């Protein structure tokens, strides 16, 4: 069970790291590019909003996995 939890956490950390790198790459922040508009938002803003939600979701998933762990209480 513990092995599975550690593996899942590693996967989430990997995803977080990839999203971090993508946030500062042309995938999310291309220079001087405003199009295409995503739901009426300029590209970088739309992509940035998605990244923000993605990090909250990743944090939520970590919190679910960590629930089982012995904590500081």
């Amino acid at each position, binding site marked *: 069970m513990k092995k599975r939890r550690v593996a899942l956490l590693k996967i989430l950390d990997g995803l977080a790291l990839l999203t971090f790198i993508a946030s500062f790459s042309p995938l*999310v922040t291309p220079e*001087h*590019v405003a199009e295409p*508009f995503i739901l009426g938002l*300029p590209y*970088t803003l739309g992509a940035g909003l998605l990244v*923000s939600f993605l990090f909250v979701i990743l*944090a939520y998933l970590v919190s679910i996995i960590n629930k089982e762990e012995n904590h*500081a209480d």
Partner: protein
Amino acid sequence: MLTKFLIAGAIYLGILVFLVRRTRVKEKTTSSYLLGGGNIGFVIGLFTTAATLFSAFTVIGMPDFFRTHGIGAWIFLAVSDTMMVYALIRVGEMLRRKARKLDFKGMSGLMVNTYGAKLAGYVAFGGAVIFLIPYIAVQISGISIFLNAAFPNAIPVWAWSLIIVGIMILYSETGGLRAIMYNDTLQGILLFITIWIIGWNCVSHFGNMTSMFDKVESISNELLSVPGPKGLFTTQFLIISAIAIISLPFTQPQISTRVVIMKSSSALRKMAIGLGIVAILIILPTLFMGMYGAVLYPEASTQEFIGHVLLYDQAEGIAALGLIGLIAAAISTSDSQIFALGSELRSLLTLGDKKAILITRVFIFFFGILALIFSILSTEHLVLLARTSFTGTAMMGPMILVGILSSRKPSLLMPIVTVMALITFILAKIGIIPSKIGVLEVELFLFSILAIACVLEGFLLGKAKGTTSKN
């Protein structure tokens, strides 16, 4: 408008007084006075952390940042804040575990205990004082200058600063951290409501968001992409900002204390997730305000623009609420920072609790006065100074993380490298050494050196572990 502001101000002060009376600590000990009893639930934890994090720099600075530098400001703050939430949930639990084990009073004291050397604690405390006092000061001065502009015939700028610092010191001294946290909750709710009403009004001016961005595009296409019209949001700038903001829960004592004193790990997890959602919801309306300003007031000064968007373009009642929200935003961050500096000092004192608390209270007053003096003298730009504060304290991040994560006593490598990094950063900021080393901004260069030092320390710790197990 003055009458409505005075009525709203009186109600606000009345609620503050009520909360201070409710939370007043008669027997002041480290646990009850400095750590708020160490039993903070999810809701109070969420609002106090949010109010501490989102200061005047969010209400005044961010709309102006969006107006001047465009939508890259979202990556600068909102994306970095949600990254911070991930870091908080990943490392927060380990910090709490270490804090429980080592009788946490403040991060500086925790560093003394984990490193087994006073140097580590002095570095953490010195870094916090050097980078927090100017940030507190610039918030107070920003709000005071703005209030003076709103009511030019009332009182001078320094008198507004004095009133703000006076309120902060009074309720911090009386009620301690619990009073601050309850007031933060009031201020956080007030800030949230105000900023959304004003943000919504800004979008309504254009009809909808699509029309708003169409209009912005017709004025300056550069505002809709990075690096923005003035080229500020370069990849390096955004990465440095992200690292600085991600480190906040461990490097800014007012936030790390809140992480430690949460009632339970479950409350901490809920607070962290809530904080991510609140960050998105607080920064979004500042984007609307900024885009509104980019169309209507592209050439105005910061003060003129904020004056219009918060006051003159709003109904009088909303404007009065806006002003109170602004004061609340500044106070809720500054009081927590001043108080946290006091707690950090306490964590370094090895005297009896009663005497240590007395000294701490004297120093909270002293830090408040210091911030007041700096606020009267300061002229720096709010957002960029806030970023300097975050980046400066982030230099301590690797040292603190090594202290929290290692199960053994680390060597003095990290404290020594951190001192050198802090000195280099300060020298670069005041222009004595270049702000670029090769192609790298000095901050990124220093973060790289600190990362190498972390790897070295890890190697040393691993070697020590190997030697012990062989023996």
